[in-house]
């Protein structure tokens, strides 16, 4: 989107500056005045050069110089347009104005539906203001003014709340940035300390060797021991001076604890799929399946004839120990408590429903009832 109208090349539409090199009022061309700047007034959005504005409106309010435009303009309202297309400029202004008045947020509404309805109303009003004809525009304007007058206090409150929220967000962001900077600084300082420590211990070792007390091995041993204490030191330091880095430490602990608490992932949620009654073998004698087992057409697609074996064997032996006659009569042998309750309720409904009220229809939605 082109920004300044003075830079835009060949604006489009009647309201935009059709010839950006010539002021439509005094007909001055850019060739004569290199610093020519176009200004508009939000009352009528007619562009004219700054010289014309100074000339016409220096002595107080005056009529717009455009033919047929009877708006009375004041000089202090003139400004340079932000958008090349002045229609867009005008719409943005209107939207800004409406948004300042209708400044409720989603939290003010009970349901999302209500909020959406509110947004719809606001959008309708805005649309009328932007592209309605004179009558609807006037009407919408009146509605807007009316609303503003009636809800003055609330609008002010919302505005303040919005500003506060914005401020809070900004502060939070700044605090986060500051914390990050602090962490980086700490890390750098630590690294530096470590480096110094290492250099010092090296020097010490060399000194000891030079002084000649003890063999090289002992010196090494000593050094290691000394080093151990220094490696322990940062740990304690981390514990004591870690007030600023609490979140990081917590993260570590969580990671360690997680696998212990849940154990390995079980996709079947504790369900055992091993067969009890039969044994699955890799091959079964089955004449008509042998063709498939060897057929590359099937094997390429990922088919394994053992899938069929598993299914057939499962079908052959599943439910052998389910005695429907007994189980359904007694309300279930191996049912869980909830299932039994449900089943019992179903039975009760079955028994009481039709007997008590023989006029109960077989279908709920009976057309001819």
């Amino acid at each position, binding site marked *: 989107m082109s920004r300044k109208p003075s830079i835009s090349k060949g604006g489009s539409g009647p309201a935009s500056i059709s010839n950006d090199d010539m002021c439509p009022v005094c007909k001055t061309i850019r060739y004569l005045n290199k610093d020519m700047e176009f200004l508009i007034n939000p009352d009528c959005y007619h562009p004219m050069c700054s010289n014309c504005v100074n000339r016409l409106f220096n002595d107080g309010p005056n009529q717009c110089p455009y033919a047929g435009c009877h708006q009375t303009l004041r000089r202090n309202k003139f400004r340079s347009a932000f958008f090349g297309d002045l229609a867009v400029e005008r719409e943005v202004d209107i939207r800004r104005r409406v948004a300042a008045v209708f400044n409720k947020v989603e939290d003010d509404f009970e349901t999302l539906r209500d909020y959406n309805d509110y947004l719809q109303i606001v959008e309708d009003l805005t*649309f009328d203001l932007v592209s309605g004809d004179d009558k609807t525009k006037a009407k919408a304007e009146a509605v807007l003014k009316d609303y503003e007058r009636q809800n003055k206090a609330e609008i002010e409150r919302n505005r303040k709340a919005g500003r506060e929220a914005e401020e809070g967000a900004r502060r939070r962001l700044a605090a986060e940035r500051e914390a990050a900077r602090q962490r980086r600084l700490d890390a750098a300082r630590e690294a530096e300390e470590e480096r110094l420590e290492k250099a010092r211990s090296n020097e010490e070792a060399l000194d000891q060797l030079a002084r000649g007390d003890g063999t090289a091995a002992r010196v090494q041993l000593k050094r290691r021991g000394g080093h151990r204490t220094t490696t322990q030191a940062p740990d304690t330091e981390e514990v004591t001076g870690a007030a600023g880095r609490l979140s990081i430490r917590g993260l570590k602990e969580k990671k360690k604890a997680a696998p212990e608490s849940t154990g390995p992932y079980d996709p079947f949620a504790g369900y055992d799929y091993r*067969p009890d009654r039969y044994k699955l073998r890799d091959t079964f004698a089955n004449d008509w399946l042998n063709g498939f087992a060897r057929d590359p057409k099937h094997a390429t697609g990922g088919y394994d004839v053992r899938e069929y074996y598993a*299914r057939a064997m499962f*079908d052959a032996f599943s439910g052998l*120990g389910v005695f429907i006659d007994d189980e359904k009569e007694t309300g279930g042998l191996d049912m869980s408590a909830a299932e039994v309750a449900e089943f019992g309720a179903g039975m009760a409904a079955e028994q009481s429903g039709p007997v008590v009220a023989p006029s109960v229809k*077989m279908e*709920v939605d009976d*057309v001819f009832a």
Partner: protein
Amino acid sequence: MASEDARYRQSTQYRLWSFSPAQLASTREKTNALARANISETLASKQSSSSSSNGGNLTAALSAPASGANTPDPPSQRHNPSTPAVPEFLTPAEELQLLNFFMVELIRACNFLELRTDMRATAAVFLRRFYVTNSIMTYPPTEMLKTCLFFGCKAEGHYPNAAKFAEQFPQTTGEQILAGEFLLCQGLRFAFDVKHPFRALEGAIMELRRYGDIDDKRISSAHSRAREILKFSPLVTDVYFHYTPSQIMLAALSLADRELAERVIHETFHHHHHDPAAEQTKETNRKGSAAAAAGEQRASRLIGVEMRDRVAGVVASCREILAREPPERLTAYWGAPESQQITRPLLRKLKKCRDPDRWDLVAYQNAKREQARQKDEDAAAARGGEHAQRGRRASLDGGGDGAVFGDVHERDVKRRKVAKTEDPFGGPL
């Protein structure tokens, strides 16, 4: 509980569609009683509406001569038209007889259409399940039969074109087939997965071959005979409701070759309780004795002698039922005139006592749709002008927006409707 049984207990076939014989009988009786009540009510209301207009004519006709001749209105004449309004209904036993007749019809249709085994079995089970909670007098079995065939194909993963499917039947349109589809789904409680004994038979045969000491020819002949039985007998009896597929399979196998079925049962439930050899081995490693004892107990419960006898008993009872309808009866009995002599009067009786509103499924469905539409319109009108205005505004702003809002609106209504009906699964069981 064996893991295989636990898994079977999760199926809808077990949870929704397994009954003890007594339960099934009582459910069928209830269905019959409800159908009677409903049909006599609708018939009576029709009769009264027509007779009230008749009566009006009668009084009008009577009023003229009443001024002249003082003839009293004979009360018997008034009651006469209402007494034949309640026809003789089918009894539950007769309904079952008719249902079996239609099951055979369905199997014949399957033979004609050359459907796959699983499709025909699924279709048959669908029909049988549907008429557990719905009476033959309420919905036309000839129509539901076609719908079951069509839907059974779909349930088994074969998707025929409804119109082309209908062409294979005389005087049938795709609309007629589809009219009963949702009804069927409701009647099935939306449980479309039927577990059949066919693959189970393959498993048992594989297991038999594995034993290695049985003549292969014998196994093959038993296999084909059992398949034949499974394709017919379970479908015209109630065994799908009372037994699990593996039990039905073993019963069919024992009908084909009793020894082989017994062999399977004996090999499966092979665990012996007090095996001295096992006892001794346990003595040697005392450490795992507790765990071993627990395993032993579990094994004896799962594959012990007790379980074996129980399973054998169930299989024998299933076998008894299957033996009543061997595959030969398809032609020897159901095709013979003696069965027609039984079913023909029943069909004649059915013609008189069927539900006049629901007999024509296409008209019934249209009426239902019309009513639903009416309801929607009423609801939309009741919601008032506010909504309509918004809709108009939206459609002014842009066609797309208007369409979207309209959609949302419609969906809303649908959801509300679903919430309103207490049971989306159709009528009470």
